[in-house]
């Protein structure tokens, strides 16, 4: 083995407007690497597990940065906005604390200062077999090392596995799915909007990519509609340490209540599926119920009714159930 710490030769393009960036993305395709804060990027390159020809550094494009309110009362966040800004922004802290709470649990302060929301949403999975550069399904091969009799898979998926059992690592993605955000995507050939829930894709859809972004596309911004502003939120991330680790399981929940009853709810778990995992069964079961311990106890098993455990991740089943219980306990 060779342990590298030198970056391989890689071109660096630093466009200052979207048009140049999309032109580069169109030209380079998968040979180009869209660069945000780079906090998860360089490890891939140093390890030679990914070998792009060039970086397209998006952090110099001003329109991709910043947080602004939308006419409908929602919020738009540029993809190159740092995680620190997302965590501290007054608009988000006022209306969508679910997202700021999730952003505050991303990595460590220095990484939040450099890392961007777009980068956090588009980062690749943490599966250590895949990251080591092994030729697994996700890398284009025909084996999954994690889902084997000897596989070390305490961090892997309970749901949505299809050949690959990797999970989404993003802390902010479940919050955005819960808030029914929309992703604004652009390319040289036009723009489109994709619901957050559809932006993240599982291995059954595309085993090589974790988002719906095409090779020539750039994530411009995330729009959070007013709908869940001022709802009651619950966020919890359980990891090995208090900080910095990726989630073993996280839960983002939003509740609307009226007269002591839940009238609408979105519950989305991280760390259990290749995509932010919506707990639809739970959502349906709690409508019309009070948000309390009894309801939580009654519905928590629905969170995992479709779970398929691996050798070392059974603990995620009670953990998910307990987080649902805590979300409903309030």
């Amino acid at each position, binding site marked *: 083995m060779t342990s590298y710490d030198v970056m391989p030769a890689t*071109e660096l393009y630093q466009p200052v407007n979207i048009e140049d960036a999309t032109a580069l993305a169109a030209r380079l395709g998968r040979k180009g690497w869209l660069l945000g804060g780079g906090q998860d990027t360089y490890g891939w390159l140093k390890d030679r597990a990914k070998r792009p020809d060039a970086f397209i550094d998006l952090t110099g494009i001003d329109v991709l940065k910043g947080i602004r309110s939308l006419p409908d009362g929602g919020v738009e966040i540029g993809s190159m906005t740092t995680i620190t800004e997302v965590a501290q922004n007054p608009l988000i802290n006022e209306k969508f604390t679910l997202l700021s709470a999730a952003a505050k649990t991303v990595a460590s302060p220095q990484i939040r*200062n450099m890392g961007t929301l777009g980068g956090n949403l588009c980062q690749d999975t943490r599966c250590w077999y895949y990251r080591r550069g092994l030729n697994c399904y996700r890398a284009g091969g025909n084996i999954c090392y994690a889902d084997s009799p000897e596989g070390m898979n305490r961090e892997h998926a309970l749901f949505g596995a299809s050949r690959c059992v990797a999970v989404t690592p993003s802390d902010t993605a479940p919050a955005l799915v819960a808030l029914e955000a929309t992703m604004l995507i652009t390319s040289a050939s036009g723009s489109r909007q994709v619901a957050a829930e559809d932006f993240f894709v599982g291995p059954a859809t595309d085993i090589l990519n974790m988002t719906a972004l095409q090779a020539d596309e750039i994530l411009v911004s995330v729009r959070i509609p007013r709908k869940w502003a001022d709802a009651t939120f619950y966020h919890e991330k359980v990891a090995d340490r208090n900080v*910095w680790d990726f989630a073993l399981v996280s839960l983002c929940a939003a509740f609307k209540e009226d007269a002591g009853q839940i009238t609408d709810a979105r519950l989305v778990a991280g760390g259990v599926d290749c995509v932010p995992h919506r707990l639809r069964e739970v959502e349906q079961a709690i409508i019309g119920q009070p948000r309390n311990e009894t309801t939580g106890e009654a519905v928590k098993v629905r969170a995992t009714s479709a779970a398929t455990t691996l050798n070392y991740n059974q603990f995620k089943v009670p953990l998910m159930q307990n987080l649902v219980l805590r979300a409903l306990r309030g």
Partner: protein
Amino acid sequence: MKVSLTVNGSKHKVDVPSNTLLVDILRDHLGLTGTHVGCDTSQCGACTVHLNGSSVKSCTILAGQAEGVHVTTIEGIGSVTDLHPMQAAFRDRHALQCGFCTPGMIMSAIDLVNTSKGLDNRAVREGLEGNICRCTGYHNIVAAVLQAAEVMQGSSDE
């Protein structure tokens, strides 16, 4: 590629390959070896510097991304005869044993104090989450940061 950046108040132009990381410019080109590399994967925090005042890990920033910015390293915050209050507190409170994590720890702590109010034990610990110290158990580090915060915030309020 040519990169222009200001380091500790001095302007520098360096001609480096586009894959060069900021830490390599600081250590190898400018001889600022107070910025340490403990992991090269943005985890240990020993390479923490300020980019326009904000703490970042210099092992995980391309030189090209530092174009035009102000970089401050441990060498740029105080001198032997005029220590920054955070440096003085680390020295006085025995907040180091081997001293390898110290520059990064000090740079993170300064950013933390500059951007926070009413710091307490818990807040300091959370603010230093990106820096590993393997020697001290963090006890004296937290005490030093709280001491420096009093000095720094006391003087800025005046």
